[in-house]
């Protein structure tokens, strides 16, 4: 039989945990609203840029002389992965699911005999990948997935990647992040960013415009197609990274809200159970004491 004092202490402690989780849930819900509108506001730019690029790329007669960011470096030896996670935990499977996908990709690329490099955005991803793949991590960026993510951060990373690519340090690159679908659903997404690949059809919000990819060839180009591509492709890197940051942040808040909602509910159930035990124990004690008194009186 657990004693009453211990039970009281436990109930108090679960209660205070519940207060914290429910506060976190409410904070996540507030942040989610802003983050979601930021993520949605950021989609048009990325979608349109990709659409124009896809159109341009399709209209090029050959890939000869095309910028390397489109045509590839001609080799396929080194792969760079940008793994976007959160800086903080307590958001359910959010970080783990990205890391799990990253591990899978690393294994696949390694099995194909490629060298893999990792850039971790967010502390949690770094922490989880460090033990197994510490030597692959070339950099970690912290505190750039946050409320009102700054395009300048994405730009810094984007131009760094494009410099590294120009220097021949990697041949292909992808971004792994949680795409925000709804508050309760985040989809782990792998996007190839180098060489440029047209977006898979199910992604993005502006699908209605997908069909006008065809007549792109009729555009007057100023300057030439190649030059436009050379100017836009490096920018596209930054834009795609920026998109990943926004989507990831919104997903993080959504995941945290769900996780904390569950935690609050679980804590409530636990409190109910502990209260029941507490009351039973108390009653049992009273009964026992009564029996002791009565049988003591009878013995006299």
């Amino acid at each position, binding site marked *: 039989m657990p004693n009453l004092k211990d039970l009281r202490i436990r109930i108090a402690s679960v209660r205070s945990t519940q207060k914290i989780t429910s506060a976190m849930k409410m904070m996540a819900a507030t942040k989610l609203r802003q983050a979601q509108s*930021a993520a949605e*506001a*950021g989609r*048009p*730019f*990325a979608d*349109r*840029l990709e659409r*124009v690029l896809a159109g*341009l790329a399709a209209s090029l007669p050959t890939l000869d002389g095309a910028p390397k960011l489109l045509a590839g470096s001609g080799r396929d030896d080194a792969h760079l992965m940008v793994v976007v996670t959160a800086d903080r935990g307590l958001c359910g499977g959010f970080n783990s699911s990205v890391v799990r996908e990253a591990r899978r990709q690393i294994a696949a690329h390694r099995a194909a005999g490629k060298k893999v490099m990792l850039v971790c955005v967010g502390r949690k991803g770094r922490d989880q990948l460090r033990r197994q793949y510490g030597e692959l991590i070339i950099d970690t960026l912290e505190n750039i997935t946050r409320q009102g993510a700054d*395009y300048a951060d*994405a*730009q810094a990373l984007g*131009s760094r990647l494009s*410099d590294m690519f120009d*220097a021949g340090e990697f041949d292909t690159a992808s971004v792994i992040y949680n795409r925000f679908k709804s508050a309760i659903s985040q989809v782990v997404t792998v996007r190839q960013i180098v060489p440029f690949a047209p977006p898979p059809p199910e992604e993005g919000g502006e699908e209605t415009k997908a069909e006008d990819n065809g*007549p792109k060839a*009729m*555009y*007057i*180009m*100023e*300057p030439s197609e190649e*030059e*436009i591509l050379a*100017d*836009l492709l490096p*920018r596209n890197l*930054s*834009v795609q990274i*920026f998109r990943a940051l*926004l989507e990831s942040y919104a997903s993080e808040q959504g995941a945290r809200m769900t996780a904390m909602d569950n935690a609050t509910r679980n804590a409530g159930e636990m409190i109910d159970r502990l209260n029941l035990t507490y009351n039973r124990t108390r009653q049992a004690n009273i009964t026992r004491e009564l029996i002791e008194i009565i049988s003591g009186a009878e013995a006299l």
Partner: protein
Amino acid sequence: MADDKVRYEVVVPSEILLSEEADMVVIPGGEGDFGVLPGHAPLLSTLRPGVLEVYDGNAVTRRLFVAGGLAEVTPDGCTVLAEEAIPVEEIDREEARQRAEEARQAYEAAQEEGRPTAEKVLRAAEAYLVAAENVRGKA
């Protein structure tokens, strides 16, 4: 009325900044400024850091500093995708001067391979400063 107006949108990475109609939009293209009137031939152009001007009647109703991106013109209107876009009147002159100064130093400090990037940054910063100075000059 809708026929003699041109629809234009200015989109930055974080949002759609403007989506309006005007009589003419003058865009700082990579190969020189060009004006967009209704029914313009389809055109794709890069952007040069500079000032985008929106005309209604004969007056300029909006002036925006834009940098880095592209302009897509269709007969229905035009879309400007810019990495950076800010109404000229909101530019802080002091900040612009500082930015130009920093860019110049970065350019001078840049090594061989960093030069082209630093030069682009410097160009944008200088155009930014020019935009800031001009608006004060006219006001």
